């Protein structure tokens, strides 16, 4: 994992370990993650809302009762009349949190809203919802919002614990996904597992094209590359020098998932957000400042254009 902690020199092993997990860190990675995660949530939940908010969250459609639901947590759906108000609350909280506005409050509101929609309708909730809930739970307990926000705050370092938990989440997710495939599933024994999965009810037009034009061997190759990537994720993301390889490989992997499986683009986008947590602080600061300068340039160009237009239109004859 990254060594961008503001560390003291000449520490012993125990102190270095404590400093790594709990020492002060710049918030740029967490805040960039917040911005991207928020945008991915707005896209995902926006898509679900557009598909059918009435079916998703209202009393007019079918929802399993708490008694019949083995998750033993089932929130009641809303009357149709309340949906617009809930929509304003839901997307409003997410949008404000994404923009880093009043994050102490908006992170909790977003957490409540996302938890509500997940447990009201588990039929449309997947791994992506679970990661969103955990991410928001971490962020709700962690002061953030110094960067990527219109609010003017003086940046200050925070303990690294939230950054480490979120980094661990990605690494653990990739590793146990690979482990499940290799040792609980049959990805090692059966070279056609991916081929059988890809032609199912997630199959996109792109996947169908690949199935038409590629021999099964290509899918076997993709299968073993996927396994290798997931099982080596701890090394690829924890060792600084391997990180560019890990991220590049991961982007290709997540891109293929998005291309071949219908609507899994949302899941890929969510996972890719985690990659930001492994970038260098200075890279993110440079990006942020470059974008800020670009925006300022655009603003002044627009103002100039505005003035020119004004002068042209209202110049005394």
């Amino acid at each position, binding site marked *: 994992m990254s060594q961008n902690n503001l560390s003291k020199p000449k520490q012993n092993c125990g102190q270095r370990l404590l400093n790594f997990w709990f020492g002060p860190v710049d918030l740029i990675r967490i805040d960039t993650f917040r911005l991207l995660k928020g945008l991915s949530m707005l896209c995902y939940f926006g898509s679900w809302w557009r598909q059918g908010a009435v079916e998703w969250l209202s009393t007019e459609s079918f929802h399993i009762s708490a008694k019949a639901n083995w998750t033993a947590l089932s929130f009641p759906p809303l009357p149709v009349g309340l949906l617009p108000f809930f929509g304003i609350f839901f997307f409003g909280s997410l949008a404000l949190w994404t923009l880093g506005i009043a994050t102490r409050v908006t992170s909790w509101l977003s957490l409540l809203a996302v938890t509500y929609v997940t447990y009201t309708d588990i039929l449309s909730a997947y791994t992506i919802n679970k990661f969103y809930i955990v991410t928001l739970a971490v962020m709700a307990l962690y002061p953030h919002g110094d960067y990527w926000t219109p609010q003017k705050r003086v940046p200050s370092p925070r303990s690294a614990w939230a950054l480490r938990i979120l980094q661990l989440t990605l690494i653990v997710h990739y590793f146990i996904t690979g482990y499940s495939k290799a040792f609980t599933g049959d990805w090692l024994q059966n070279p056609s597992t991916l081929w059988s999965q890809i*032609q199912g009810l997630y199959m996109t037009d792109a*996947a169908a094209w690949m199935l038409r034009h590629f021999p099964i061997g290509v899918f076997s190759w993709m299968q073993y590359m996927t396994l290798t990537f997931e099982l080596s994720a701890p090394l690829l993301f924890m060792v600084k020098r391997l990180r560019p390889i890990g991220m590049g490989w991961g982007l290709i992997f997540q891109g293929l998932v998005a291309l071949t499986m219908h609507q899994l683009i949302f899941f890929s986008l969510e996972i890719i957000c985690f990659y930001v947590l492994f970038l260098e602080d200075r890279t993110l600061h440079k990006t942020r400042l470059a974008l800020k300068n670009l925006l300022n340039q655009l603003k002044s160009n627009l103002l100039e254009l505005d003035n020119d237009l004004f002068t042209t239109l209202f110049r005394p004859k």
Partner: protein
Amino acid sequence: MMIHKRTIPSFFDYFCFAFFIFVWIIPLLYMGFTNRIFPRMPPALSFLHNASALFAKSVSSWPQYFIEMRFQPDGPWTEYDYTDDFKMKPFGYRTRVNRFFEIFSRGEYNKMAREELARWIRGRYALKNPGKPLPIAIRFTDARVPLRSDGFDGHWKNKPLSEFSQKEKFVVSVHNF
């Protein structure tokens, strides 16, 4: 850059870290390695931990689910078109009803959930067909689309029930009213 003086880390930082390690990371690892729920974990939290065993096994066929109704004791089963009731397609080319059966189609402990769906479908039928006799039984059928090696002419498309042979269809459950 002005640095605010604060104790880093505070007791709260240690507490939060320990919380997420014990409530999230460890159970996530446990479920990933053993395929079992972490002991004594509330079901609502275990639901969150079941996040990573995705597409782990090969399949020999893909399920499609159908709802059928019977209006006479020995009458035929007629297919109920639920596309108006379940328009959402969250992940994949499948409806929430398909997702329901993926979770609740097996086991006596899921019978209550299937019973609820059957009653709800009957209620929907009554709303859409006022004055008409209601079904006396509802049957849920699992029809299997076998794997193939050709004929991939585009994205996944659901097959109509009439195109499945008898050996490709399985009764999930029957609910009498």
